[in-house]
């Protein structure tokens, strides 16, 4: 001992030595008592570690290196062991982690969940998701905690495996996003679908309404209505069909036509309807339909095609109108006309004879006024005869009794002779002849002359101001065509449609004209019987062009 040293210093040194001694003693005691796990010795190669109690090194390394965090806590929640993975996860040096309270690293947002999980973990092995707090980024880290009770020498500990769910969450959130997008797309699709459904529903309802409307319309008009598909299959017949025919509504639609059509009409009916389907032109035909009492009644059958927006035919709509009464009336009228005209003809003939006798009377000279009267009477008689002949023709046509003697004739020549004739009759008119080349047709001279004269007299009748009439003869294809053009009052479209009907007269208050309206009807019948075509082109107020075409020989 150095006596020079102050006492206090010596005391301090002594004290320090005592500590060091105690330290050394304690170390030895600890080793002896088995409180030491390992001795650390510095070898030649540097630091070396000697483990006294060989812990389960395999598992230790496994835990140290594994991708999950591994933490052991005691009852107080103090971390007794942590692997470096967990320290890295929360961004804190390992030495600051061990010994700390595990709860410290749990994100505040879910402390309660954490407490609950750990409380439960002490009772039984369990798992739960807990967010940790990343001390560096301050972001919560989603983790899966799986708690296992661990039996240690001093009692129970809780070992917790911490699995970082961040990347899984990312994938999940991406998946969720994708899912949401998918969901969105699905909901859009659904919405579209719903809209579509609604509009389909509306359309269906509209369609139903319009169908109902059509059906009720069809069922309530007095005519019989039917519809057929583009191929001619009948797919609807209105109520009136069943009332008229007495058939049951359960009768298959395809059978009905055969059951109610007159045997004589069926073939022609089919032929014409098939032709209409083919040409897509409106169909019209008169035929007999069997009533429930077994009698056949004449019906006018019409059908028109209904087209969709692309012009395709989707349906044929047909009507059948009972015209039996009219037809009988007409027949009666024709019969009456026939009889009347016949009865008129006889007195007219004798009247004509007597007038001829008067004008040829030679025994004593006739006074001039008488001669004039006789001429006037002859003129009037001529007109009367003309009308009566027309009437007779009409009744013959209707009875199908118009007789022809058909010969090959030159239509051009016939036209020319008619023109010459007309120039005599209508000297005030300028009748031009255009064309004139030979056109041989099969026909009846008198009847064709009748047609020509009728057309010319018609033109004269309706063109009192402009007195020019042009008659042309041409050939086109295998048809000979004759056109009579005037520049008179012309015809409206609706008039043009009716002009060839029986007893139709163009009404015009300014132009009072005579006639019974049979002329063009007779013309049309004659041309029809010659397998020809008759027609008119006209504009109201500008004149008309009547034409007929006959097949060339």
């Amino acid at each position, binding site marked *: 001992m150095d006596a020079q040293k102050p006492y206090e210093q010596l005391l301090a040194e002594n004290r320090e030595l005592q500590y060091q001694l105690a330290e050394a003693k304690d170390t030895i005691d600890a080793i002896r008592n088995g409180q*030491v*796990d390992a001795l650390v010795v510095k070898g030649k190669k540097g630091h070396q570690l000697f483990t006294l109690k060989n812990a389960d090194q395999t598992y230790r390394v496994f835990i140290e290196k594994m991708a999950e965090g591994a933490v052991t806590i005691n009852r107080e929640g103090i*971390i007794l062991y942590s692997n470096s993975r967990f320290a890295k996860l929360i961004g804190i040096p390992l030495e600051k982690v*061990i010994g700390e309270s595990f709860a410290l690293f749990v994100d505040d947002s879910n402390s309660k969940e954490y407490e609950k999980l750990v409380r439960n973990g002490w009772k039984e092995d369990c798992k739960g998701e807990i967010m940790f707090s990343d001390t560096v980024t301050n972001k919560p880290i989603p983790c899966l905690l799986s708690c296992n009770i661990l039996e240690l020498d001093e009692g129970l500990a809780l070992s917790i495996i911490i699995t970082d769910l961040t990347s899984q969450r990312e994938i999940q959130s991406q998946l969720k996003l994708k899912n949401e997008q998918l969901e969105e797309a699905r909901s859009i699709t659904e919405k579209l679908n719903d809209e579509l459904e609604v509009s389909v529903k509306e359309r269906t309802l509209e369609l139903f309404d319009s169908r109902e409307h059509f059906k009720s319309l069809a069922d309530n008009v007095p005519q019989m209505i039917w519809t057929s598909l583009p191929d001619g299959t009948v797919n609807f017949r209105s109520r009136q069909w069943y009332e008229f025919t007495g058939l049951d509504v359960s009768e298959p639609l395809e059978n009905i036509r055969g059951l109610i059509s007159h045997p004589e009409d069926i073939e022609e009916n089919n032929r014409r309807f098939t032709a209409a389907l083919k040409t897509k032109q409106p169909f019209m035909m008169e035929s007999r339909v069997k009533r429930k009492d077994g009698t056949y009644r004449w019906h006018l059958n019409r059908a028109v095609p209904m087209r969709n927006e692309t012009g395709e035919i989707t349906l044929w709509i047909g009507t059948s109108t009972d015209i039996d009464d009219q037809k009988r009336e007409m027949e009666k009228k024709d019969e009456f006309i026939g009889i009347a005209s016949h009865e008129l003809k006889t007195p007219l003939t004798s009247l004509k004879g007597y007038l001829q006798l008067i004008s040829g009377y030679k025994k004593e000279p006739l006074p001039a006024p008488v001669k004039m009267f006789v001429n006037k009477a002859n003129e009037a008689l001529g007109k009367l005869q003309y009308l009566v002949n027309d009437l007779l023709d009409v009744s013959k046509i209707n009875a199908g009794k118009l007789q022809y003697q058909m010969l090959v004739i030159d239509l051009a020549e016939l036209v020319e002779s008619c023109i010459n004739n007309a120039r005599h009759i209508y000297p005030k008119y300028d009748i031009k002849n255009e064309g004139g080349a030979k056109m041989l047709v099969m026909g009846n001279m008198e009847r064709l002359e009748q047609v020509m004269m009728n057309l010319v007299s018609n033109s004269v009748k309706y063109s009192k101001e402009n007195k020019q009439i042009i008659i042309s003869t041409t050939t086109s294809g295998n048809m000979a065509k004759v056109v009579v053009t005037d520049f008179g009052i012309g015809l409206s479209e609706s008039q043009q449609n009716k002009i060839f009907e029986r007893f139709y007269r163009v009404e015009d208050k300014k132009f009072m004209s005579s006639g019974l309206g049979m002329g063009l009807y007779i013309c049309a019948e004659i041309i029809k019987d010659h397998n020809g075509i008759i027609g008119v082109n006209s504009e109201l107020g500008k004149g008309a062009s009547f034409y007929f075409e006959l097949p060339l020989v």
Partner: protein
Amino acid sequence: MSEQYIVPGDNDDYIDKNKAMYSLRLFVTGASPNSIRAIANTKKMCEDHLNGRYELEIIDIYQQPEMAELEQLLAVPMLMRRLPLPERRLIGDMSDLNKVLTGLEIKA
């Protein structure tokens, strides 16, 4: 202060020790029973006697061997008082609280 030796019986010195910030470092080997005990005991001791004025670092020398190298370790578990100086070392599982308190010069 680092040069100043601690003198028993010195009132100021004890007051100083009672206020001083303790920096402790515990070296352990993984989750061995001694280590676990040492951790639990040290932590409890700190909370009970150094509440609010200690810093404790626990080093698993398996996982952080480089930290062990710096400290000339002999045996583990070992509790080291780094502050206040001088450095003190205790070996064992720290189950004898009196010994630990004495060793670290903490007033019970």
